[in-house]
């Protein structure tokens, strides 16, 4: 049942995207047989200014470039600066304690394997045009809205 529902949802949204002539693929609107000039790579933010987190559980975005940083079984460049012992030299924020927890919330002595591949969750930012309009609303705004409408809140 669930799969049927999901596929129905996919079909509906996909047709909606096409019928409104919106951007449906990364290729843009170029016909299949034509070669489309790719947009230039946007510059990655390297401002070193830490960004707002949109909700408390969000993995913070990376405010610096990470070109060529090696992350594999042999070496993790991120931990060269973000590990517990590295931060005095690097003055980077330490990976938080959640990075030492295994799936049973036990604290390990070093970064947990499931948090080893940093770029699974943390990504640098670039000034790009969003493909679709984003209607995200910050939770503080939701709270404000509720407060002003119901007088309650919290």
């Amino acid at each position, binding site marked *: 049942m669930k799969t049927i529902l999901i596929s129905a949802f996919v079909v509906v949204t996909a047709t909606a995207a096409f019928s409104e002539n919106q951007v449906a693929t990364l290729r843009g609107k170029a016909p299949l047989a034509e070669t489309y000039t790719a947009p230039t790579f946007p510059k990655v933010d*390297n*401002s*070193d200014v830490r960004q707002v987190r949109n909700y408390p559980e969000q993995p913070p975005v990376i405010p*610096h*470039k990470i*070109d*060529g940083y*090696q992350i*594999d*079984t*042999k*070496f993790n*460049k991120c931990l060269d600066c973000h590990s517990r*012992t590295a931060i005095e*030299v*690097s*003055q980077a924020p330490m990976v938080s304690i959640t990075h030492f927890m295994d799936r049973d919330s036990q604290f390990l002595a070093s970064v947990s394997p499931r948090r080893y591949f940093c770029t699974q969750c943390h990504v640098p930012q670039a000034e790009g045009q969003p493909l679709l309009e984003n209607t995200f609303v910050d939770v503080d705004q939701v709270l404000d809205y509720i407060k002003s409408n119901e007088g309650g809140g919290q």
Partner: protein
Amino acid sequence: MRRLLSRMWWLLSKPATHLSLGFLTLGGFIMGVIFWGGFNTALELTNTEEFCTGCHEMRDNVFVELQSTVHYSNASGVRATCPDCHVPHAWSSKIARKMAASKEVYGKIFGTISTREKFEAKRLDLAQHEWARFEANDSLECRNCHSSESMDVTLQSKRASEAHERFLLTGEKTCISCHKGIAHELPDMSGAQEDHAQNSAVLQSYLKELEN
């Protein structure tokens, strides 16, 4: 045969009665130039990236890794080749490095690193050699291109300028202390961290004490 050889020796050892001293010195000088030039040319020939990547050990391992880094391809099109980072410019240190490199050729002939696996197994050793060399010469090869005097830290990112101001300009550290792996993939570093090795040594002696 023996007669021929002894006759040739007699000819060669005979003082030159028919040649003028001028001719001899000039000839010697010219031959010197030719041999010296030939030596240096041969030296220069081995000092190119084509030579360095001529054997598959280098081509398939470190060279492919270099190709995705800034030192191979960047906006300004200025690049670093293998000898730029691995061979000193001053003549005496160059010869010294070449002598050491002969050992590497020996390694090639006897297949010390003939496969990726063997290369990876030997890699930490090789890398530590290079790091020691850079630490000892204050990263001379890097500084042949990058000079800390011409480095305008105000134009750098905050991360870079703070690190350089605190540790580079004060002379506390040198390029390679922070920029390991700038041109190639790093080997398994778990065995390379000094403080780890030190800590485990301390731990081990403590455990021994407990046992007694």
